[in-house]
């Protein structure tokens, strides 16, 4: 018997099966821990933030459309929660408006061999990720560590698909530069 999909489990939670939510927590807790830890970089409250994510996901589960994918939905909640933490700590600027999203960019081709790319940048990612600006750090984390495609990242960050490509390319250049300087 195949495991139920995330969407099927979410639907059961929506229908009142509260305990089914534990399955989603089990599936997504490691992913959320990894994502939040890397996204928040300087911050120590990863555990608390991840807990907040799941509480918010439960509270808002009725807003989830079961005909869509569950993963971008929960990552979007995680993104918002992490941004709120960053704003509260005020150690990094969270731009209200991003000029990158205003104009169209030439379409950045999504690399087909992500693994090779990641190996190439492995050392830079390990040592310099936390030095990246917030706007570049998040798409890199989602792309390399959460294995998301540009469209999913666009859904999570609510930025144009072409801007995702531009930011990832800039982030890669920045990482290489920071690693070179190190």
């Amino acid at each position: 018997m195949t495991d139920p999909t995330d969407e099927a489990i979410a639907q059961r939670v929506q229908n009142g099966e509260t305990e089914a939510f534990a399955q989603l927590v089990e599936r997504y807790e490691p992913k959320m821990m990894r994502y939040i830890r890397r996204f928040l970089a300087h911050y120590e409250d990863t555990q608390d933030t991840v807990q907040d994510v799941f509480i918010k996901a439960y509270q808002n589960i009725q807003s989830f459309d079961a005909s869509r994918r569950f993963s971008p939905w929960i990552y979007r909640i995680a993104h918002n929660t992490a941004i709120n933490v960053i704003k509260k700590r005020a150690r990094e600027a969270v731009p209200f408006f991003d000029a990158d999203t205003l104009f169209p960019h030439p379409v950045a081709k999504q690399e087909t061999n992500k693994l090779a790319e990641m190996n190439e940048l492995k050392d830079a990612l390990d040592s310099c990720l936390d030095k990246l600006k917030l706007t570049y750090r998040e798409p890199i984390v989602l792309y390399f560590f959460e294995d998301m495609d540009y469209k999913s990242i666009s859904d999570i960050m609510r930025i144009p698909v072409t801007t995702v490509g531009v930011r990832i390319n800039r982030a890669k250049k920045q990482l290489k530069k920071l690693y070179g300087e190190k």
Partner: protein
Amino acid sequence: MNAIRDGETSMHSKWHFKRKTLAATAGLILAALTTLLVISLIIFALRQSGAWEAAAFGTTGARAFFSALPWILITAALIFIIIIEIMIQRFAFAYHRPVLYSIALITGITLIGGYTVAQTSIHDKLEKTQNTITQKIYTKTIKKPSQLHMGQITNLNETGFKMKTKDKNEYKVIITPKTKTPKQFEAKPRMMISVIGPHTSTTIQAYGIRPMNKKLHIRFKPGDKQTQKQIMKHRLQRIRTQ
């Protein structure tokens, strides 16, 4: 999970989200309709003031056109367009593409919609309403373009002609070799015209002269019988309501 099991945290109901969606949709519709109305009022005002006539007179006309623009309404329309843009950013069709695309789409739709509403009689009726606030809005919005004079030729003379405007002012229009007119233009008595140029209390130095757009004749004809009838009817209605 303990917090959930202990009831410390609970699910928002489906109705909570449906209400939010309904409120957001209502807000969006209201913002869109307001933008349409504002833009239609801008188009109406420019038409009624004769500002489009000024636009045909080159650089001087462009300056006159800009002087007639209702800047407060334009600013309001831009603010509403930004509000609509922010509201639609929750939808994938908007955030998947650059902001410029959705702003262009919103602007295009509201301009077309505003133009369509401006062609109806809604603003004509609102302009003539008894409501003081509405009348004030229309009076302040419909601004006469600077240096543009619209009226009827009364008679010709050696330096040009005489014209009478709607507010019964009579001007001597001075035509010089530098005055620009359309090809084969011939001034004739009773002709409705637009003249651009600086004026004193009695003369206009014409930089340009053009026959007036026919749609504006009824509005700018001085002392026209039909206009007189309308003015009297309006005055009687006001007396009756007082």
